[in-house]
């Protein structure tokens, strides 16, 4: 007896990507536009007067990893969330529940598609950012790996959110109230070393600080913390999300009545 229906997972994956294409305006253009506005305002317009604190890195270039992270986290979370919330909302989930698919196929299909969307978005953002700021990447392979890891983790996180949520408001609430502000304050626009105490210590509790720093290290080979710490935290978060989802599937929580 097979433990994984590859065809089922692939079907979900394709279906989710097709849905994203149908709503390309919302899933690609809108986040791209808002990210570009940041580049224009903070990178191109004000950037000349700001100091990044990193030798050889302009302020405009300094904020690229943070802004990319900001978009990645909120988009991955909401993609992951809506992917599963929509069928729950319309009732179409009956088909998934009655199909020979379990935890693994569902995760690979839904979360894989959400993560793929994030990757595509990241590529587009990085390409477009070139028009506004001059940046370079020291560790391109790590950038790719880190983006993948973060997209997958937060798509998983979003997936949990989409199962937990009982309304559209709740789906939108977490990215808007937590993910976005925490990332914003997580050193996207500054090195947290420039913060006076007690703000610096408070900032250290914010998990996004480590994500932003991790990605910044991949770009410029310098960061406020060792990159291994960022990596370990991301992997830990990923594992936690997988465990929670496995538990949700085992118990049928908010999926089966």
């Amino acid at each position, binding site marked *: *007896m*097979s*433990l994984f*229906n590859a*065809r*089922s997972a*692939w*079907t*979900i994956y*394709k*279906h989710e990507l*097709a*849905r994203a294409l*149908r709503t390309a305006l919302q899933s690609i253009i809108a986040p791209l536009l808002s990210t570009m506005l940041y580049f224009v305002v903070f990178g191109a317009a004000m950037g000349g007067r700001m100091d990044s604190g990193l030798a050889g890195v302009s302020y405009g270039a300094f904020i690229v990893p943070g802004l990319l992270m900001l978009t990645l986290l909120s988009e991955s979370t909401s993609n992951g969330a809506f992917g599963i919330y*929509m*069928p729950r909302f*319309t*009732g*179409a989930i*009956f*088909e*998934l*529940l*009655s*199909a*020979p*698919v*379990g935890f693994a196929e569902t995760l690979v299909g839904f979360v894989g598609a959400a993560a793929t969307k994030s990757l595509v978005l990241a590529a587009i953002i990085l390409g477009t950012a070139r028009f506004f700021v001059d940046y370079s990447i020291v560790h391109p392979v790590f950038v790719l790996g880190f983006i993948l890891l973060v997209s997958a983790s937060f798509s998983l996180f979003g997936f949990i959110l989409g199962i937990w949520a009982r309304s559209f408001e709740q789906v939108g609430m977490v990215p808007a109230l937590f993910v976005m502000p925490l990332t914003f304050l997580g050193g996207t626009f500054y090195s947290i070393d420039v913060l006076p105490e007690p703000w610096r210590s408070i900032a250290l509790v914010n998990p996004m600080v480590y994500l932003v720093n991790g990605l910044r290290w991949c770009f410029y080979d310098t960061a406020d913390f060792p990159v291994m710490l960022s990596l370990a935290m991301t992997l830990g978060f990923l594992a936690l999300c997988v465990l929670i989802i496995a538990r949700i599937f085992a118990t*049928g929580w908010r999926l*089966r*009545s």
Partner: protein
Amino acid sequence: MQNILEIEGLAKTYDGGFTALRGVDLTIRKGEIFALLGPNGAGKTTLIGAVCGLVQPTGGTIRAFGEDMGRHWRRLRRRIGLVPQELSTDMFDSVINTVNYSRGLFGLGPDPDRVEEILRSLSLWDKRKESLRALSGGMKRRVLIAKALAHDPDLLFLDEPTAGVDVELRRDMWRQISALRERGTTIILTTHYIEEAEEMADRVGIIQAGRIRMVEETREIMARLGRTEAVFTLAQPLEVVPEALDSFPLVLASDRLSLVYRGGDGTGQGKAEVARLTKALIATGVDYTAIDIRESNLEEIFVNLLEHADAEGEAA
């Protein structure tokens, strides 16, 4: 293997504390059409949901194709199809995409010929490129049927397949369902149209308040509980039923102007007896001006049974 589905002691108490199934035992035979009848809230959808993985049972066992559903769900679900009661699916997809999606979801590779065949059989082929939300309710229901058929299930659940479907479409759907049976598919359907069960089902199960009240061959229920009723409108009022007619189950109406026959069974025996009665009436010199004759249907039987069960329940 004769039994395709064996349900034993199936119980479901929802989170809110409501008990929808109270120990259901039900066996479905291979190749039959089984109609599950019962009033609103009886537990039909819950029962189907428990078999199909939408509802987590709180007790009992379900065996499909001879294997335990809880343990071998991955293999068994490939062989089971479900058309839900609610029209719930991604309304922005096109007809053909959504059917292909269903096929893939159940682990089968693309098969354009088979999908075309399914869509044609449900008169959906011309609409294959349309988005679901542009279809009428009856058409949407057909799409849900097409989706459920996309993986060629051996056991198909149809939860009120003809709800909100006009008479013509309904007859058409009956033909589809019969055609599926010809292919060897076992079908379990729920319906509120008793005519539908009478027309199609090999066996009928009656569920009420989470309990199966009765399971029987449709023909047998009709035979056992069916009746013929004939009302003779008399030319002149009668004081009593003539002795010569004592052998017939006759009652004189209170206005003494009509004679009512109630008897026979659901197999036509009653009609034959009414024919004999007409001759006997003439022979005894009882004149009549009209005969109104009709067969009781499953609907009446059903209503009677439920009233009976209610009375029993109250007495207990």
